[in-house]
């Protein structure tokens, strides 16, 4: 009478752990044992419905049933209610795949996240993993690069540069050594897609990097991961070891003559290491000072050799494209933004999490319909899109579509797809001050407009907030912003004016309040 064990899924994603998933997993094991139930606990990634974490799922003949948010103290009552067979309970949400949040999405990159056991190669394969790499191994380097070009894939790290063109440059470069570098610095506030992908489906990025290596003839690769992600670090390291042991990468990629040696390298708490040339300096063991371009990293990158530097999500899109074809990918999206974008919704929002959708959905649909408005229940006042260097938008501007060009047209940027919601208690002059303070702290120091300008910016904002000679100081602020935009070497100094100026232009009333001591009643 040994029935197959019941499969119960308890996420091991860091966000789920941050609100108690570990204790829930322990309680499930304990309660099942107490009842003599044979269960198999799968520690999956997160489905992205972070407000429902810890989200526990149980496999039933009708499909996977979700319960959440589950606290350890709820587990006994869940078993009482027969949740192991999908039974009714106050926390029962229904079939996971049929929840509105899930159904609305178009998951290509995140199709396996939350579904599979992240470190199981068998599970990864069973869900289509390594089909893209197998396909790539049957093509020439040039055919792979043409496929990526035809897909319209643009770099998901922020700048939106066409990935295929970058790969072509590296393919065409002649060198005895080429490198593949994955930018997993993910330093922007409001972004967590790279982390969730590594924790929920680590082989996908590894596969994407291996395809890049096969395409351009690179034999070494590095994943540069920020040190703020210790959990993703452990998962990735284990995944690389397992992929090597299984002969998927290493001395021979899937039994072919291609070698691809991959390592994870940890950053050390510096935002600027997300900038690609600074990242390369860091990988070389130096202070992460930005390099002037040209030369492009594609021609003279890591240790002076031709190097593909791409974001995690860019590499992760590649296996799907190889497997399903360039056109299938390009069929999603709008304008020059093809495919899907993993959107990360955070901050003061009721239902925050990760949503993967074709380009083109409006910010308002994301925040109001999917996100359910603010967590505080107060009106939305400002939304920052694209990280600390991105613009603050007003509640009136939210009809803009998620698309590189549409946002650029309103002096905003999509960046890495992070959305941060603020309610009406936000003080936009303080947010402008923070943008400068962040730049001052994280500047690499190479060029004067950024290094000195950011510090001057904090001082000017302090005078404006204190009510000292406001019109004169606002004029200084505009001047400074223009100088930083025009004269900074990289986007750190060059884009810091974006949050500052959007705050000033869209929320001028916050820059013209009574001086603070008077404001406090």
């Amino acid at each position, binding site marked *: 009478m040994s029935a197959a064990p019941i499969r119960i899924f308890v996420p091991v994603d*860091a*966000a789920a*752990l*941050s*609100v108690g998933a570990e204790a829930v997993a322990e309680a499930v094991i304990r309660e099942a044992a107490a009842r003599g139930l044979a269960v198999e606990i799968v520690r999956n990634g997160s489905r992205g419905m*972070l*407000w429902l*974490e810890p989200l526990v799922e149980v496999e039933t003949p009708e499909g996977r049933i979700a319960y959440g948010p589950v606290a350890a103290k709820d587990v006994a009552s869940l078993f009482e209610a027969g949740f192991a067979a999908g039974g009714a309970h106050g926390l029962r949400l229904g079939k996971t795949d049929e929840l509105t949040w899930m159904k609305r999405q178009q998951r290509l990159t995140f199709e396996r996240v939350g579904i599979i056991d992240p470190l199981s190669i068998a599970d990864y394969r069973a869900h289509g993993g390594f089909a893209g790499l197998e396909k790539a191994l049957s093509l020439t380097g040039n055919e792979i690069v043409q496929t990526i070009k035809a897909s319209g894939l643009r770099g998901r790290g922020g700048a939106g540069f066409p990935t295929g063109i970058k790969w072509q440059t590296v393919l065409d470069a002649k060198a005895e050594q080429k490198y593949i570098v994955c930018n997993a610095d*993910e*330093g*922007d*506030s*409001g*972004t*967590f897609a*790279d*982390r*969730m992908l590594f924790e929920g489906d680590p082989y996908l990025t590894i596969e994407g990097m291996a395809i890049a290596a096969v395409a351009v003839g690179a034999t*070494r690769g590095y994943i540069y991961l920020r*040190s*703020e*992600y*210790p*959990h993703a670090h452990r998962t990735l390291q284990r995944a690389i070891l397992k992929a090597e042991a299984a002969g998927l990468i290493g001395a021979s990629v899937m039994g072919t003559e291609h070698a691809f040696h991959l*390592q994870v*390298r*940890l*950053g*050390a*708490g*510096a*935002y600027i290491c997300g900038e690609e040339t600074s990242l390369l300096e*860091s*990988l*070389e*063991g*130096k*202070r*992460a000072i930005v390099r002037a371009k040209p030369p492009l990293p594609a021609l003279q990158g890591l*240790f002076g050799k031709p190097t593909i530097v791409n974001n995690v999500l860019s590499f992760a899109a590649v296996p799907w494209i190889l497997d399903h074809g360039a056109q299938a990918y390009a069929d999603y999206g709008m304008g020059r933004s093809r495919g899907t974008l993993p959107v*990360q*919704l*955070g*901050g*003061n*929002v009721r239902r*925050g*999490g990760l949503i993967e959708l074709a380009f083109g959905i409006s910010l308002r649909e994301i925040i109001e319909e999917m996100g359910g408005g603010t*967590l505080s229940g107060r009106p939305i006042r400002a939304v*920052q899109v694209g990280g*600390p260097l991105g613009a603050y938008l007003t509640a009136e501007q939210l009809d803009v579509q998620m698309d590189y060009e549409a946002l650029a047209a309103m002096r905003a940027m999509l960046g890495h797809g*992070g959305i*941060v*919601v*603020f*309610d009406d208690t*936000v003080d936009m002059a303080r*947010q402008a001050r*923070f943008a400068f303070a*962040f730049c001052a702290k994280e500047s690499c120091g190479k060029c004067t407009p950024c290094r000195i300008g950011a510090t001057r910016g904090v001082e000017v904002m302090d005078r404006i907030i204190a009510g000292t000679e406001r019109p004169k100081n606002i004029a200084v602020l505009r001047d400074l912003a223009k100088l930083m935009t025009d004269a900074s070497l990289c986007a750190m100094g060059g884009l810091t004016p974006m949050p500052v100026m959007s705050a000033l232009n869209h929320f001028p009333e916050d820059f013209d309040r009574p001086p603070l001591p008077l404001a406090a009643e």
Partner: protein
Amino acid sequence: MAGYPAWDQDSARTIIAGLAHLEGATLPMLHALQDEFGYVDPQAVPLIAEALNLSRAEVHGAISFYHDFKTAPQPARLVKLCRAEACQSLGCEKVVAELAAEHGIVVDGGPSGDALVETVYCLGNCALGPSALVDGELIGRVDAARIAGLCQHGRA
């Protein structure tokens, strides 16, 4: 301190030698030393410089550039409190103020008992903030009392 062995020049040398074959080995070495001893003693500078054929200034420059590396022994518990925009919108500055006013813990103000509370910008938990990383473990929806309790605990 607690949990870490005292700096030992010989084992530092062994750790460094074990990583010298890596390309661009400086950061892996610094991380490995900090993992072992809780900080990177200035005595490591000439060892790394020699192992990698770099100048001491280059090694020192790298250590001082990155926020993570500490050059003196650290309190037993390290709390990194996120103060980036998403956590700001969820009240992390209120947490900072309450920590100071109600618990005498000043963020970035040096050790509080056996704990150190530092600012960090984004922990990738922006939908469940305010967030903190406590000895490598991520905590969501954190408040001042919880952090103060964890600092207290670190003292035991």
